[in-house]
């Protein structure tokens, strides 16, 4: 598989703290790559670097072979990177459809935006496709703030899909979900990984081991291990640093 997203020797320093240290990874469409590790290992910082929200102190990021290092988040988004956040980041007073439609419009230039506004149905139809992909087609006209916690997390991904990305960066999308919601979400992740390159940061190990094709384990900003879920589960170093013995 050809990598669509490549991080090469990525580092990020905050004062005296090296939050991400020389991390390299490659991600291809059709692949779900899970990044796991203890709290404070640098996982969210890595996602923020890949999404262009933080500038790396060293290293580079390529999307489809283009160097996008230092381009800023909205430019990286236009190169095809969509993301969800640890804490839900939506417009609660707007409808589900309006939330998704904003993401469609954010993808185009100012001139394109005017064109999109004129051709209203184009953006609406892209937004509706994104919503149906995450199982929210029936809820398109509901006010986002009235959705359940699980549905809000689905909408976050729907909004990311509405930006028509090739890469999805998902930061703890299962946080706060009950067992049933987690199961539904695992199915959704499996489906998405067929058509997108998905990078998943998550602590729910049942789901991670059920959906990941490859895994990277981070510790103190560095890559501790990278490999298949079977290899990661078998690694003594990963057990000691993160999994413990109950997983």
């Amino acid at each position, binding site marked *: 598989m050809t990598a669509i997203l490549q991080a090469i020797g990525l580092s990020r320093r905050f004062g005296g703290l090296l939050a991400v240290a020389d991390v390299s990874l490659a991600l291809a469409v059709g692949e779900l790559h899970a990044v*796991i*590790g*203890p*709290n*404070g290992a640098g996982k969210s910082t890595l996602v923020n670097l890949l999404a262009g929200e933080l500038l790396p102190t060293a290293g580079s990021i390529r999307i489809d072979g283009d160097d996008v290092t230092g381009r800023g988040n909205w430019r990286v988004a236009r190169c095809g990177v969509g993301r969800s956040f*640890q804490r839900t980041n939506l417009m609660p007073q707007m409808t589900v459809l309006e939330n998704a439609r904003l993401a469609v419009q954010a993808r185009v230039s100012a001139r394109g935006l005017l064109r999109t506004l004129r051709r209203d149905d184009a953006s609406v139809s892209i937004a509706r496709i994104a919503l149906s992909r995450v199982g929210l087609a029936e809820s398109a006209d509901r006010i986002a703030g009235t959705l*359940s*916690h*699980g549905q809000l997390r689905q909408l976050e991904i729907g909004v990311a899909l509405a930006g028509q990305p090739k890469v999805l960066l998902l930061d*703890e999308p299962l*946080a*706060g*979900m*009950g*067992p*049933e*919601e987690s199961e539904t979400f695992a199915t959704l992740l499996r489906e998405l990984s067929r058509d997108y390159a998905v990078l998943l940061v998550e*602590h729910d*190990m049942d789901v991670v081991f059920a959906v990941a094709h490859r895994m990277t384990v981070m510790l103190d900003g560095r890559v501790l291990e990278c490999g298949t879920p079977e290899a990661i589960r078998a690694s003594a170093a990963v057990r000691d*640093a*993160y*999994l*413990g013995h*109950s*997983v």
Partner: protein
Amino acid sequence: MTAPILEAQGLAAGYGASQVLRSIDFTVHSGETIGLMGRNGMGKTTLIRTLLGLLPAQSGRVLLDGEDVTVLPAFRRAQRGVATVPENRGVFASLSVLENLRLAARDGAWTEARVLELFPRLRQRSRHRGNQLSGGEQQMLAIGRALMTNPRLLILDEATEGLAPLMRDEIWHTIRVVRDSGIAVIVVDKTVSAVLSLADRVTVLVKGGVVYSGSPQVLRDDVELMHRCLGV
């Protein structure tokens, strides 16, 4: 039997016109560990907020040691020995670990030294600010700060959420230590198996009402109830 530490009688509460809790009866006795369970949106956090005095009751009563505290503000209930570890941890971001602990201190068996013995990691990070801690360390600090008040009842709302597996194990171990020290505990958590193995009694909420209150073992064996009420 002595009066329960905490009791809710016919408690109803909600937000504005929306009623979330419907006539809840709920008790916690001294030294008891209660698992408060239910799917998302069933009223667990609303019940906790109402018991703590952070949300007014629409009807019904809250009693502490048999005394009606329904209209007492949260800080008065805290002074009577009710402490909480809230869902968002509530750590003071600009204060150091030690400052976070010291501002909550009240006389009793739980001292700064004992809390730092329970959480050696906090000792290592004692001069770091709240916002420089990892999620797990913040959770330890929130629990440590609650213990510094020397409570008789500790309420933990989703204390293991967003934590790595190893850290989650550590938090469950800590809750056992707290329980074994004689403090009554109410625990709300998505990890059903952990709650069932820890609790002396469990209360299950569905749509703001109590549908089960009793032994965790009986609930665990009731496959239909587990599926219907907890989605397991």
